[in-house]
């Protein structure tokens, strides 16, 4: 390509217009650590679910995704990751992730199953994946190699709709190479349907004090809105549960996001910790809104005593979690 080409110069200029700040690498390492914990938790949750099914016949449409492609900031897991605690005791009740709301049934499951059979037998459209979901049948369709500017032409959408698909998206054949297998792509389609609801909730609650967080559970078609109790009537009224539609669950919790943020800041600002064995690595809210999770680099003696002392500074219950020094948390090279 011509080095003097206007397009070439402009694109290179755009690429060079940003540089990473020093903390970028640290954020990546934290992200890796968090993702590894979640994967462990998902594996644990999957084991627990399998046990429950074999013993009690519990049928779940669990939102925990064993696939590596979870793009959500919060991942629903049936049981929380339990990193090592300073004393090796059972982990306290301060989960890192938000617990999933009760399982939702798939509405009209038999109808959806029949639709799936129809979709898979279509000759004019290649349906790679079709599955019943709480939000209706999701169909992923192979690109037929036509005009690359088009995604799904209207006539194809019409065929799929007639066969019973509620959501029709193009199958991404390159997805599995980057962790987006068929199940993950279906999950993504469901997550996209939650986005407008999340935006609506943000708009409806803008400026109201007490917000404690939003969590999405794509497979369940559920958005969980946590709010500091007592939940105002205006917020409680946002809950909704209609079959086939996105469900909104409003849950009262003890502390708001702001409460947690300010509590964490008080710890970081506490000069008294500088000469103590407490080497802060991170602070974050418990997934159930019950207090503050405090990550520390190395284990300390008298965990209960330190949690109590830190709680006095923070102004809310504190759970210590040994995360290790940042350097040791990196994947082995």
């Amino acid at each position, binding site marked *: 390509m011509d080095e003097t080409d206007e397009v070439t110069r402009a694109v290179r200029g*755009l690429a060079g*217009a940003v540089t990473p700040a020093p903390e970028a690498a640290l954020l990546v390492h934290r992200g890796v650590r968090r993702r590894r914990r979640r994967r462990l938790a998902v594996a644990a949750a999957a084991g627990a679910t399998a046990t429950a099914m074999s013993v009690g016949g519990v049928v779940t449409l669990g939102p925990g995704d064993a696939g590596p492609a979870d793009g959500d900031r919060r991942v629903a897991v049936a049981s929380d990751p339990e990193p090592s605690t300073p004393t090796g005791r059972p982990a306290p009740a301060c989960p890192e992730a938000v617990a999933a709301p009760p399982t939702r049934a798939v509405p009209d499951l038999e109808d959806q199953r029949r639709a799936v059979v129809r979709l898979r037998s279509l000759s004019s459209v290649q349906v790679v994946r079709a599955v019943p979901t709480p939000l209706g049948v999701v169909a992923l369709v192979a690109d037929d190699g036509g005009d690359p500017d088009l995604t799904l032409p209207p006539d194809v959408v019409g065929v799929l709709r007639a066969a019973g698909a509620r959501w029709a998206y193009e199958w991404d054949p390159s997805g599995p190479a980057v962790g987006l297998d068929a199940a993950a792509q279906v999950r993504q389609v469901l997550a996209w349907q939650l986005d407008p609801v999340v935006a609506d909730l943000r708009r409806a609650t803008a400026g109201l004090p007490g917000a404690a967080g939003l969590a999405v559970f794509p497979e369940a078609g559920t958005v969980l809105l946590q709010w500091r109790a007592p939940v105002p009537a205006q917020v409680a009224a946002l809950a909704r549960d209609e079959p086939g539609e996105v469900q909104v669950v409003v849950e009262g919790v003890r502390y708001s996001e702001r409460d947690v943020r300010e509590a964490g800041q008080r710890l970081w600002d506490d000069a008294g910790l500088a000469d103590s064995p407490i080497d802060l690595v991170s602070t974050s809210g418990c997934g159930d809104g019950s207090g503050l999770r405090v990550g520390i680099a190395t284990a300390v003696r008298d965990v209960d005593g330190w949690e109590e002392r830190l709680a006095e500074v923070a102004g809310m219950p504190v759970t210590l979690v040994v995360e290790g020094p940042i350097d040791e948390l990196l994947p082995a090279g």
Partner: protein
Amino acid sequence: MRQDFAAFVEAETPRLLGLAHALTGDPHDAWDLVQESLTRVGVRWRRLADGNPGGYARTTLVRLNIDRARRRRRETLPGEVPERAAPVVRIPLEDPVEPWLLEALAALTPQQRSAVVLRVLEDLDHAGIAERLGCSVGTARSHLSRGLSRLRERAPARTDLGGT
């Protein structure tokens, strides 16, 4: 030789960020893509370290961006996107972003944009672009050709070439 993940992140982040910024035109979105791509590399590091983790990261980033763009094309999200603090620094001395470019890039399909950016920044041929996009060579050629054509239609005519 087996690489160290920390060194890999240190070395690759600027390049990935540039690629992501050219793909998205937005430093926050660019950072999101970089972080997600590097995170995916990180959790698979033991498997990738002896191979081509940089290629894996760039392919992942490009595909994630196409996915993100497809998602946005199909929906109009109400409300404003909340502000996020991305660990991204813009070069302060002058703004090297051509004013017409963002608008022109936004007019391309995600695949066309990716093809152009990969050609310009990564110097990939049609086969390389096809591999990154996960499509046939013919389709990659079509994306690149149409993308470049559309961009050049919108590029301002240069008046300072100083000759032919």
